C-alpha cells in the first residue's frame, strides 16, 4: 500500500508538470498577449514596449520557467485588466466555488447512492422506475433551465429562498440542488449497476449463508464493492463541478471562480486564465489521486495490480 501510494504521488506530480507546460504554452499560442494588453489603438512601438516590459520577447522556455517558479511561490502575476494580484482575486472567490462544489457533490451522493441501492435491490420495481425517472429528468433538463425554474418557484412565488448572492447558507440551497442534480443520474445508475452485479456474486451468497443480517449483507459486503467505480466517477464530477459551475455561478450571481474564469476569458486576461486552469488541473489530479487511494483502501487487490 505504501509503495502504491508513493507511486501514485509521483505520477500525479508528473501529470501536474505536463499540465503546467500545456497551460502555459496553449494560452501563449492562442493570441498575442502584448496586443491584448496594449489595446486596439496602440501603435507598433507601444506593443513592442509592452512586449519587452512583460518579457514576451524572451524564449518561451525561459518565460515558462520564470512563470512556473513564481507560481510555485504563489505568485501568478497581476491581472492585465484589473491590475490586481491574481492570487488575491482567486483566493477571494475560491471559498464560494469550493463550498458550492462540495455541497453539490455531497447532495448528489446522498441522493444517488441510497436511490441506486434501493433500485438495485428490486430491479424493475416501482422504486427502480422512480429512480430511473429522476435520472432521465436529471440528464435531460438543461441546468440553466432547471435553475431558472427553481428561482421562479422557490424564489419568486413562494419566496422561501434568496435568489442571488452568497452571504448566507440559504443562498447556497438552490445552486447546490441545481448543480448536484446534474451529477445524480450518472452516479445513481452506476451505483445501481454495480449493486446489481455485486448482489448476484458468490460472496454475497456466502454472506447470506452465514446468516448475516440483511443490513450487514447490503452495506458491509455489497456496497463497499459496488461503490468503487462510483468513487472514481464522483471525484471526476467534483472536479467538474469546481471548474464547470460557470452557468450556475452566473445565474445565482455567486461570484466564484467559475464566474471569474468566464470574465477572464472574455478579456483575454492571461495570468488569471493560466492560474485558474492550473489550480483546477491540480484539483483534478489531487482528487483522482485521493479516489485512487480510497479505492485501494476499499479493495485491497487494487494496490497489487
Amino acid at each position, binding site marked *: 500500500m505504501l509503495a502504491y501510494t508513493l507511486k501514485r504521488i509521483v505520477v500525479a506530480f508528473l501529470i501536474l508538470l505536463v499540465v503546467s507546460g500545456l497551460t502555459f504554452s496553449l494560452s501563449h499560442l492562442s493570441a498575442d498577449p502584448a496586443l491584448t494588453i496594449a489595446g486596439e489603438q496602440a501603435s507598433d512601438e507601444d506593443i513592442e514596449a509592452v512586449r519587452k516590459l512583460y518579457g514576451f520577447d524572451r524564449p518561451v522556455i525561459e518565460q515558462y520557467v520564470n512563470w512556473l517558479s513564481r507560481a510555485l511561490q504563489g505568485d501568478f502575476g497581476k491581472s492585465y485588466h484589473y491590475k490586481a494580484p491574481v492570487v488575491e482575486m482567486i483566493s477571494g472567490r475560491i471559498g464560494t466555488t469550493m463550498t458550492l462544489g462540495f455541497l453539490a457533490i455531497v447532495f448528489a451522493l446522498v441522493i444517488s447512492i441510497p436511490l441506486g441501492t434501493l433500485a438495485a435491490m428490486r430491479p424493475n420495481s416501482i422504486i427502480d422506475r422512480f429512480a430511473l425517472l429522476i435520472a432521465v429528468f436529471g440528464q435531460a433538463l438543461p441546468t440553466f433551465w432547471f435553475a431558472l425554474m427553481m428561482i421562479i418557484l422557490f424564489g419568486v412565488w413562494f419566496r422561501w429562498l434568496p435568489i442571488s448572492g452568497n452571504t448566507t447558507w440559504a443562498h447556497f440551497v438552490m445552486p447546490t440542488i441545481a448543480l448536484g442534480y446534474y451529477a445524480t443520474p450518472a452516479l445513481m445508475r452506476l451505483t445501481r449497476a454495480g449493486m446489481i452485479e455485486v448482489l448476484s*456474486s*458468490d*460472496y454475497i*451468497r*456466502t*454472506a*447470506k*449463508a*452465514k*446468516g*448475516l*443480517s*440483511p443490513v*450487514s449483507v447490503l452495506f*458491509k*459486503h455489497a456496497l*463497499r*464493492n459496488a461503490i468503487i467505480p462510483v468513487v472514481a466517477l464522483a471525484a471526476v464530477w467534483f472536479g467538474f463541478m469546481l471548474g464547470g459551475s460557470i452557468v450556475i455561478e452566473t445565474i445565482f450571481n455567486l461570484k466564484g471562480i467559475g464566474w471569474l474564469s468566464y470574465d477572464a476569458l472574455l478579456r483575454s486576461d492571461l495570468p488569471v486564465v493560466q492560474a485558474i486552469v492550473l489550480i483546477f488541473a491540480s484539483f483534478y489530479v489531487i482528487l483522482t489521486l485521493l479516489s485512487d487511494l480510497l479505492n485501494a483502501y*476499499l*479493495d*485491497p*487487490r487494487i494496490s*497489487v495490480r
Partner: protein
Amino acid sequence: MSEKKDVVLEVDNLRIDIPVSAGLLHPVRGISFDVSRGETLCIVGESGCGKSLTSLAIMGLLPKNADRQADRLNFLGKDIRDFDERQMAKLRGVKMGMIFQEPMTSLNPSYTIGNQLEEVYLRHMSSNRLEARERAIFLLDKVGISSAGSRLGQYPHQLSGGLRQRVMIAMALMCGPDLIIADEPTTALDVTIQAQILHLLAELQSDFDMAMVLITHDLGIVARVADKVQVMYAGRTVEEGNCEAVFDKPLHPYTSGLLRCIPVPGKTQPGEKLGTVPGVVPNLVGDLNGCMFRNRCEFATDECKELAETPTVLENGHAYTCRLKPDEMEPSTGGRL
C-alpha cells in the same frame, strides 16, 4: 422414529418450480432424504439435475422467483418450511453451514480472512472479538492452515484456491453447526488438492459429529466418504441406498452408466474404453410424464413412457425407480466396483 439415530435433517418430497419464459421449470421434482448426526449423505448427479438447488432450498437461499414446496422439511425436529428470512438467518451459519463450489469467488475480496471468519461468530454467538479471533485461529489450524494467527490479516487474493476452500470450511464451522452442506467443494480445485480437502471434510465431520450432505458429480468421492448415496436424475431420485449396496449392485441403468464412466484400479485394463452415458439431460419445462431417463436408456421400452416414477424398495433400504427387476440389468452391465 424407532432407531436411536439423531436425525438432523428430514426432507420429504421437496419440489422446486421456477417460472421461465417457456413455461414452468421443474428442476427438483420430489426429493426425499434424511441425514443424522455423524452421517454423510452424498447426492450424486450430473450438471442440471437439481442437486445444487436442493441444497439452496434447504438453506432458504433459492432465487426469489423460485417456488419451494415440501411435504416435510424438518431441521433439528423443527418444521422450517414456513420460516421467514429472519428465522432462517438465525439457523444459517450457526446450525447449518454451507461450503460452496467456487472458493475463488466465494470470499469477499475487500475484507481480511480474519474479519470474515470472526463476523459470523460475532453475529451468532454472544461473544467478543477476542473469543471470535481465538475460535478463528483454532479452526484455521484445524483445517490445516499453517501460522493461522498471521493469516487472519490476509486478504482472499493472497491465498491459493485450496487455502481459500479451507478458509470456507473453517467459516462454515465457526459456530459448530449440526449440519454441513458441501456443494461440490472440490470441483474447482486441483486434483491433488481435491483429495486433501475431501479427507479434511470427512475428518472434521466425525470430529465435530455433524451431519453432512455432500453434493458431487464425482463417484470416486462418494465411494470414499459416503454412508448413504442418493443418485439424482432430472430432478428426481433414481436410486438411493447405503454406499456399499449402491456401488456393489446398482439397480438403475443411470447409476450403472455413471459407474462405468470411472476407471477402477485393478479392474480396468489398459486400453479399455471407459463407458459414457450418451445423450443429454431432458428439458424440465412443462408437464412431464414417464421415466425421464428413457431417451438415454438402453433398456427403454414403450412402457417407460407411461411409467409412474415410484421407487421399488428392497429390504436393505436400497431403493430405485425403474421398471426393471433387480437382476434384469445384470450381468451385461452390472456394477463393477
